[in-house]
């Protein structure tokens, strides 16, 4: 009789202990960072995306990041020099997409980020330094993913600077990139599908003329990139009419 009671008692205690241990282990598991993906799966709360797309957004620079649909003014004058053209958001986006599609996007991205750096007022050196460091890490440092094509001297100037908040820090680099874009990318852009699309989306006055282009854009029309560092969608059709994989 006594042993039966004992066994029952043992049963209850052991089951209770097991339950407690299991719950503790479960709690420990979910508190570790390893479980984050699982946690995000089973979370019933709607997750708000608090991630910023660009450094500019993270620093709170006005008017950067995604394309803002502004009231359509009279069309962009395409005979302006490139640095003026790139001030126009729609043109810049179109040109950036073109550059990304032929693996030359870092120049335009760099230009845009330096442009955003320029919007930070000079009396805010902390934000300027953050932005400058971000640009240097992503575009200037040798081996950076979006390293730009600049001369040795210009690179050393930037990497060796003592004042990261200086307004003219990236002037030489921007100059070199502008020359590169003007002489190399711009000509091919005029005869690309991106420009055709840009013209369709931004119809201009009938009297304004277009820069001369010719039929064949020699730029890369289809490259199978499984790993596109610029993370942009490619909307181009190959000459054979086939849609390109990304």
């Amino acid at each position, binding site marked *: 009789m006594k042993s039966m009671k004992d066994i029952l008692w043992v049963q209850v205690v052991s089951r209770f202990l097991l339950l407690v241990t299991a719950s503790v282990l479960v709690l420990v598991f979910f508190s570790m960072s390893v479980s984050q993906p699982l946690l995000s*799966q089973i979370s019933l709360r709607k997750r708000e995306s608090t991630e910023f797309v660009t450094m500019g957004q993270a620093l709170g620079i006005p008017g950067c990041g995604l394309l803002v649909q502004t009231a359509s003014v009279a069309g962009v004058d395409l005979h302006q020099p490139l640095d003026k053209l790139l001030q126009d958001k729609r043109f810049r986006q179109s040109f950036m997409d073109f550059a990304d599609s032929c693996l030359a996007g870092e120049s335009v991205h760099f230009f845009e980020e330096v442009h955003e750096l320029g919007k930070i007022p000079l009396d805010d050196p902390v934000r300027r330094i953050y932005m400058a460091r971000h640009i240097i890490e992503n575009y200037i440092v040798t081996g950076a993913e979006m390293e730009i094509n600049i001369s040795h001297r210009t690179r050393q100037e930037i990497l060796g600077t003592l004042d990261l908040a200086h307004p003219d820090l990236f002037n030489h680099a921007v100059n070199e990139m502008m020359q590169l874009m003007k002489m190399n990318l711009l000509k091919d852009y005029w005869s690309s599908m991106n420009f055709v699309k840009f013209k369709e989306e931004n119809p201009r006055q009938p009297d304004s003329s277009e820069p001369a282009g010719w039929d064949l854009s020699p730029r890369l029309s289809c490259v199978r990139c499984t790993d596109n560092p610029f993370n942009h969608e490619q909307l181009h059709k190959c000459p054979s009419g086939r849609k390109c994989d990304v």
Partner: protein
Amino acid sequence: MFAELTRETGQNTYSMISMLSLAFEGMGSFCSRQKPYSEADAEENEQAAEIERRIAQETKAEQHIHKLLLLGAGESGKSTIFKQIKLLFQTGFDEAELRSYTSVIHANVYQTIKILYDGAKELGQNESDSSKYVVSIENKEIGEKLSAIGSRLDYPYLTKDIAHEIKTLWKDAAIQETYARGNILQVPDCAQYFMENLERLSEADYVPTKEDVLYARVRTTGVVEIQFSPVGESRKSGEVYRLYDVGGQRNERRKWIHLFEGVTAVIFCAAISEYDQMLFEDETKNRMMETKELFDWVLKQACFEKTSFMLFLNKFDIFEKKVQKVPLNVCEWFKDYQPKASGKHEVEHAYEFVKKKFEELYFQSTKPDCVDRVFKIYRTTALDQKLVKKTFKLVDETLRRRNLIEAGLL
């Protein structure tokens, strides 16, 4: 009693584990994103089949397209070869395209004179015999003005007046001395050609000639491609080449990897005249050493095990002139060079030495199982249209023969 205890614990653990696993599974399926289940429509099936058919067709057509890559360090002549191929096998340059190079050529002129003037100032400060690099007083003002223009974003049109000033500065003894030391500055190879043709370049209605376009220097960024069919019998068999041109500077090379699949042949351009020059992107590195390491790296790529390699030892025209003034030994790779003769024999001897070095490098870097891949060396001057045409004909023959061998027909 102990036995009872252990049995009991065992049973409990087992039931606990099975309950927990059931619970997790349940949670998993409950939380996994539900994919929309689309009904299989007869029409959709048909569309899918049509797309499959088209893909199969195009893949088949694609197999006849031979992929050629132009690789090499910066300023090795890849884009010039690319332009030559366009001239030879495509419609060539029409007037609109020729005109589009005017701004590029003018930019080259402004950039060159700025590099030379700034270089003269620098050499005048740093060198021991600095007096020979000091520009004459009259030309100093011109120099400062041109240097300022050269740093602008937009260059003015090259008028007769400016051209005259540039010519005057170019003729200055200090500038000529600086040009003689051009290997330590980043003076483009087209400098002399454009400086000598300034009158023509500054005409109001100047349209660049084909030669001007070939000399024009633009750093390539990203990737450019053309598709062409070499003239001759291959036209009947539908042989098509797709040629890719890339940037050669270090930052551009990380983009090359996207092009490495399914390459028929790599045309590797090595500028043999650059044995005494430093890189544009790293002035502490010798260009020939960089080319040597780059060639080694390219040869060792796994995806090029079956790829044919055509090595273009380019800029022979500059090499010819330079090798008589600057010994090959200044480059570490060529330090065991012994000059034999002089004049034309010396040039040939030097060229054979360089060629042998590249051959040795090739066989060192090639794994035993890749020994049957094609490797040919060609002496080129990318600016010489006849030579490039002849060279490419040889390349084409080699590739077609290779193609037939692989198809088992030879």
